């Protein structure tokens, strides 16, 4: 049920053919798990909350540092030293009072990820490291929850949507262990753009509109301003997919 205020607030998206009040109700009922409240997370959270998502559960263990502020636009100068989830929750609740924000100030790990994502309709990868992405990928497959991968470096970005058991997963795409890397270069407009594409995928999935970015890796090169789409096929030998199939999910 939408209130008159909600109908007025979301009028411009309700007008989109195929979206309608039904689409808005679907968004209102949905729960999204957002892994990371940094550069990607700021864009994803801002636009999902503005669009009227029902619940946004955000996990991030980080404290805000000055070097975050060029891209993590939910965090401001005065927030340095605070927990990212606290700063993000405060801003997002002001942006849209009707949205339920569930902050989790914990490190995402193999032994707690299942609890964190429980009950969510979709998982969004807004992490700043590769090992946690693999933890999220595996959890998404095990719990049969769609997963929107996104990552950035410098002027480059990547996005792909994963439907467990049906489309290529992150481990199908990149084979084997990936060495941990430290601090990475990035300009704020890149996670903003990639995060908005991720949020678009979430909205499309929830509202059942359009065509998802599945089995397609979208590569963005901001320097030459080119988007390249690469085919991503399921790997029949993918350990993550196999593990889930063996466990009967």
């Amino acid at each position, binding site marked *: 049920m939408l209130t008159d205020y909600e109908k007025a607030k979301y009028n411009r998206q309700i007008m989109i053919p195929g979206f309608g009040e039904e689409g808005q109700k679907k968004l209102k009922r949905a729960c999204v798990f957002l892994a*990371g409240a*940094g*550069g*990607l*997370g700021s864009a994803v959270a801002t636009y999902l909350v503005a669009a009227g998502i029902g619940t946004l559960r955000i996990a991030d263990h980080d404290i805000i540092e000055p070097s975050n502020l060029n891209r993590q636009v939910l965090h401001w100068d005065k927030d340095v030293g605070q927990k990212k989830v606290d700063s993000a929750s405060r801003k997002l609740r002001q942006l849209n009072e009707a949205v339920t924000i569930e902050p989790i100030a914990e490190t995402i790990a193999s032994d707690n990820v299942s609890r964190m994502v429980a009950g969510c309709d979709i998982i969004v*990868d*807004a*992490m*700043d*490291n*590769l090992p946690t*992405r693999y933890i999220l990928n595996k959890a998404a497959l095990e719990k049969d929850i769609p997963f929107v991968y*996104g*990552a*950035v*470096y*410098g*002027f*480059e*970005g*990547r996005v792909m949507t994963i439907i467990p058991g049906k489309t290529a997963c992150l481990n199908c*795409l*990149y*084979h*084997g*262990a*990936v*060495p941990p*890397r430290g601090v*990475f270069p*990035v300009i704020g407009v890149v*996670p903003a753009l990639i995060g908005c594409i991720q949020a678009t995928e979430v909205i499309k999935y929830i509202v059942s509109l359009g065509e998802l970015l599945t089995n397609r*890796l979208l*590569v963005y*090169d*901001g*320097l*030459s301003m080119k988007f*390249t*789409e*690469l*085919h*991503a*096929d399921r*790997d029949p*030998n993918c350990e993550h997919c196999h593990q889930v199939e063996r466990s009967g999910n």
Partner: protein
Amino acid sequence: MSIKMNISPVFLQYTNNQRVVEVEGTNVGEALDHLTNKFPSMKNWLFDKKSKLLDHINIYVNGHSAYPENLGKPIKDGDEISIIFMVGGG
């Protein structure tokens, strides 16, 4: 013979800022050898010490993954190769 290899912006500093490099070869391995002969510092970004392609590097030929053949994947005149590495920032 004209085979184009698209270079990720991350690697431009190792290819004299060339975004597209013309390479030769009958398979991906030969094309990458051609690239690394031209730009030797690229080798460390693509291969491990045993000359195995690094796990976080993906090679695409005409938009399709070269996996699992990878270096043995045949290529021909007019093909376009892209080197994609896994980025982890957020």
